């Protein structure tokens, strides 16, 4: 494999062999390594010294179930620290077919023009993106597909990335070529916009599958992993109900963010639940599907396609985090309204978590009322129109809170919390507080653990374990949900890596990779100026009891500061 370095000022490509210190890493861990090695911690995230990096995980390229994710990284304009956001879809697979271990996009163009960057086995081409500049991702992706065909993978930004908004993500095509798999968090879409790129097109014509050193051993390990995954009871729950199954679970624990994180239970939770979502999709028929795969070869198929009352697709997928942040968090108990908001957010290329949190703060600022889906949609259109109000909301919850003088802002390190109330699920609160990524939905959730989530003791240990494992999975390119297959057959991780690369890693490789990734991320953040003071939840959560059960976040500072002592 190679490192492809693209300079957007000179429009030149340099292909390099992989440095020895990078070889054993992929995905999130490799991003962290490259950031520490090459990007000044103090650089301006939207300036010429930041880099935008795409790195498939170590196991990407073999259609191993749920293991073809792409990690995208750089210095975040939202957190001003390190950022990795990963997504399903086909971008990771195509990069692996092109033999690219890391695509590093450097510098900044002198001209204002937006470009398409086309990658194939023959190298790169820059093409003017004039015909799709200013378009939302759905229309832009359609035009790119008709121009480049259905076999390419595409990573693109919407209007939000062009506007350099800190809540802008990067979208990727799913297996049905819908541009809905978003590397959403931390504003990497704005970084891509700052590099003058509207879209990256990956053409794998004439390429071969990535090599496997010991194909027989790989097949054996693959079989064992797939069996473990298919036999796990969670697989059926996710296939039938998707991530939205979490709505009632979080609500049951009093941990469903409701009305700008002012309550942990929502009286209309059932109407936005995975169970109800499935019922509605099946009743309406048409284009709706309760079970859908985002990546080729995925056996879990937790995604869905949500259709309106006439059976026409409204949005695909409709996920728990969006339901939590744009539903209960806004007092909206109607899936059709949430789907419409989700579609608009997607089209602009925005992170639905960050924008849901921004809107929650906007309610406290008096800009809308809870439950008012029409007004929420109008505010999304303010973002699209690039009005001052829209730019405030589009730059995230912290910016919105600062501008309007709202103190209840559910965010850490500048990034909004996902749909788990940290006062009710305290292990997740520890993850939100201490993760180098900011409050993040994939850095180490703990709701599954059979513990008293309200007891502050032991939560740091719980968070440490999940953070290490998740950083490991993100380095492999494995979806969160591949994790329960791997957790039941952990030896398959070792066997797959050894067979793929001819290595002889041990059974603890997941933790080894996870620890290395976290250590590097924390090192980048240290260089960027972060201290222990940044590893804290917003103050109000320490003393304002959360209805209905009344917990506050009371994990000690000592425990928070000890999370990374292993």
């Amino acid at each position, binding site marked *: 494999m190679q490192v492809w370095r693209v300079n957007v000022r000179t429009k030149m490509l340099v292909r390099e062999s992989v440095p020895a210190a990078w070889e054993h890493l992929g995905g999130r861990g490799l991003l962290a390594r490259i950031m520490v090695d090459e990007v000044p911690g103090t650089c301006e995230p939207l300036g010429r010294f930041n880099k935008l990096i795409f790195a498939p995980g170590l196991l990407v390229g073999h259609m191993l179930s749920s293991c073809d994710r792409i990690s995208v990284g750089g210095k975040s304009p939202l957190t001003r620290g390190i950022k990795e956001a990963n997504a399903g879809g086909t971008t990771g697979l195509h990069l692996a077919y092109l033999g690219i271990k890391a695509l590093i996009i450097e510098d900044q163009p002198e001209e204002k023009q937006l470009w398409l960057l086309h990658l194939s086995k023959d190298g790169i081409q820059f093409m003017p993106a004039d015909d799709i500049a200013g378009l939302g991702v759905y229309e832009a992706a359609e035009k790119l597909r008709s121009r480049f065909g259905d076999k390419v993978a595409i990573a693109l930004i919407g209007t939000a990335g062009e506007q350099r908004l800190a809540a802008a993500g990067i979208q990727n095509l799913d297996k049905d070529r819908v541009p809905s798999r978003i590397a959403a968090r931390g504003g990497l879409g704005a970084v891509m916009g700052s590099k003058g790129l509207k879209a990256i097109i990956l053409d794998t014509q004439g390429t071969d599958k990535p090599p496997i050193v010991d194909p027989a051993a790989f097949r054996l390990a693959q079989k064992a992993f797939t069996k473990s995954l298919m036999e796990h*009871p*969670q697989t*059926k*729950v*996710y296939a*039938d*109900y998707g*991530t939205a*199954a*979490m709505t*009632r*679970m*979080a609500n*049951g*624990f*009093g941990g469903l963010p409701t009305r700008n994180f002012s309550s942990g239970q929502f009286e209309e939770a*059932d109407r936005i639940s*995975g*169970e109800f979502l499935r*019922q509605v999709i099946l009743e309406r028929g048409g284009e709706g599907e309760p079970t859908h795969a985002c990546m080729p070869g995925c056996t879990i198929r937790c995604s869905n396609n949500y259709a309106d009352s006439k059976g026409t697709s409204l949005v695909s997928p409709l996920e*728990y985090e969006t339901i939590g942040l744009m539903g209960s968090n806004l007092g909206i108990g109607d899936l059709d309204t949430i789907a419409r908001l989700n579609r608009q957010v997607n089209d602009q290329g925005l992170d639905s978590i960050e924008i849901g949190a921004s809107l929650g703060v906007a309610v406290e600022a008096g800009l809308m009322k809870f439950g008012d889906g029409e007004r929420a949609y109008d505010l999304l259109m303010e973002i699209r129109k690039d009005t001052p109000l829209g730019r405030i909301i589009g730059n995230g919850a912290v910016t919105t809170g600062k501008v309007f003088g709202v103190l209840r802002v559910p965010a850490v390190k500048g990034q909004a919390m996902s749909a*788990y109330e940290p006062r*009710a699920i305290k*292990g*997740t609160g520890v993850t939100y507080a201490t993760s180098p990524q900011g409050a993040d*939905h*994939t850095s*180490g*959730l*703990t*709701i*599954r*653990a*059979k*513990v*008293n*989530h*309200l007891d502050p003791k032991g939560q740091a240990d*719980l968070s440490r*374990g*999940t953070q290490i*494992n*998740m950083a490991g999975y993100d380095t492999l390119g494995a979806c*969160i*949900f591949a*994790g*329960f297959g791997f*957790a*039941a057959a*952990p030896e398959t991780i070792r066997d797959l890596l050894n067979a793929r690369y001819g290595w002889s890693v041990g059974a603890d490789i*997941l*933790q080894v990779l996870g620890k290395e990734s976290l250590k590097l991320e924390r090192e980048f953040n240290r260089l960027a100026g972060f201290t222990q003071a940044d590893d804290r939840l917003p103050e109000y959560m320490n003393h304002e009891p959360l209805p*209905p*059960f009344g917990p506050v976040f009371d994990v000690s500072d000592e425990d928070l500061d000890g999370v990374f002592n292993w």
Partner: protein
Amino acid sequence: MKVSVHLHTTLQKVSPTGPVRELEVELAEGATLNDLIALLKLEINDEHTLCVVQGQIAERTQILSDKDIVHFIPAISGGGFPGNAGI
């Protein structure tokens, strides 16, 4: 006494009018979660099901109180894996 029961995902009951996931159940004083599980004929896999009473994980031997809200949840991870074995 009466408790309110929430059945999640694959534990929903099938009825002619559609799935049933919320119900009120009358129990004798001193009844436990085990009694409730038996009454509702729920197939509970201890390793993969979370029983939650008043917002907290509960053991099956827990004695229930009037007006308790009980959730039976086929566990999903939401992403976190506390350990590496059997979770």
